[in-house]
């Protein structure tokens, strides 16, 4: 089972799960928030959530002396993430998205004009509360699946060529709360793509890792007011 199919399966289960539990929890959450008003940078019971769904777009920026930094130029990207708060503000998330690039130097990569990376990864992180309206999240990927689809050949008889990789991603985001369950986000991600491309020894360092950063904007919808463990422990 690939990571992509695993993510799809977990998504369906997750959506069912938070519809069932998240909404049911809403009715009892008001009384909780009235009794727990203490809020610090590290913890805020009244701002506790169960699920967060993020939908947005991003701009990728390639960097470094590697096949991405020298050969690709970022165009745009899309993101769709779901994260579940396991205990307090520690969360685990699933992300699926894509980043789009133009090839700026075919001599270094091959004779194609465009590259699209399908990004699927699992991440963990923690959320902090710097002000009443802001949430600061830090996250890191723990498993991933990247698929480069290279297109734009001189003939239509070659539709695509594919490369694959694993992702090391370090991200942070800032959410601004517009209402209890609705926020906007600004995020930054540093991505290191560890490729499986077989190349001559001379090109090994150049193709082994690709580096790109992303700056994204989007919307956040949250559901529930208690983390997963609290639902069973409390």
């Amino acid at each position, binding site marked *: 089972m690939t990571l992509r199919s695993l993510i799809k399966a977990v998504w369906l289960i997750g959506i069912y799960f938070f519809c069932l539990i998240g909404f049911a929890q809403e009715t009892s959450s008001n009384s909780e928030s009235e009794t727990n008003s203490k809020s610090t940078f590290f913890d805020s019971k009244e701002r506790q959530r169960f699920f967060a769904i993020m939908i947005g777009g991003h701009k990728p920026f390639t960097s470094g002396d590697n096949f991405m930094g020298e050969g690709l130029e970022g165009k745009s990207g899309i993101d769709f993430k779901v994260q579940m708060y396991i205990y307090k503000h520690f969360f685990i998330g699933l992300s699926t998205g894509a980043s789009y690039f133009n090839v700026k130097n075919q001599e270094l990569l091959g*004779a*194609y004009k465009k590259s699209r990376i399908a990004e699927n990864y699992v991440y963990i992180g923690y959320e902090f509360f710097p002000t009443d309206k802001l949430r600061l999240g830090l996250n890191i990927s723990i498993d991933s699946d990247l698929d480069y689809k*290279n297109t734009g050949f001189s003939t239509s008889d*070659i539709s695509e060529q594919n*490369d*694959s990789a694993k992702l090391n991603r370090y991200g942070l985001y800032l959410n601004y709360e517009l209402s209890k369950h609705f926020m906007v986000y600004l995020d930054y991600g540093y991505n290191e793509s560890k490729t499986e491309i*077989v*190349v*001559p020894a001379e090109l090994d360092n150049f*193709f082994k890792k690709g580096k790109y950063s992303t700056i994204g904007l989007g919307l956040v919808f949250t559901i529930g007011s208690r983390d997963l463990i609290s639902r069973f422990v409390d």
Partner: protein
Amino acid sequence: MTALSCEVHLEDNTRILVEGTIIDENNSPISDAKISVLIKRSNYSEGENQYVIGEGYSNAEGEFSVTSLYDKDEDFAIEIHGGEDYSTYVYKTNTLEYTPLDLTFNLETVSLKKLATFNYHIERTSGEANTLRYTFKYIEGFCLEYYEGTTLNEFQSSCYQEQVVSQFLNDSNPDIEWLLSIPFGGVVEFTYAINDEPEITEFITINEDNYDFTFTY
């Protein structure tokens, strides 16, 4: 009903390196020569229906290092085109049977010949009913070397081979004007017969970049 597809699937997760140096007959480097990595290339000087999977240019020292996609193909080729001024070189092999060690195609030193343009103009001035049968023999500015593994197969190669252009001029087609690309310093053998009289042969040495040749009969 069966749909026929010509779709080519390149090797996933693979890149090759094509490298070498391009010089002319005086051992001077040739810069800005175009290096194309091709599949489905024919053996003719002008390839047909070939697909480009890698491309680059030589630098000021004549050196090139091109990263390319890869395909296992019986008509895999690396073509070096020195522009209008130089001959074309093609390295060809069957990658279904041979993939080089370390995915590197090192062509080492490739020598291109400087080309001249031979413009010929044949005009009938003797009036109707006179005919001319002529032939130009020359060496074409094209070299294809076919390798089986690392061994040159001379039988399948065609490097700077003799070409022949023949035509019969008569009332319906009395004049002709055409041009040929020929290695500079080469000799063109011009053989002709007017009104089916005995053939006469002339040798023309191409010693100008643009060599104009006019013949009247």
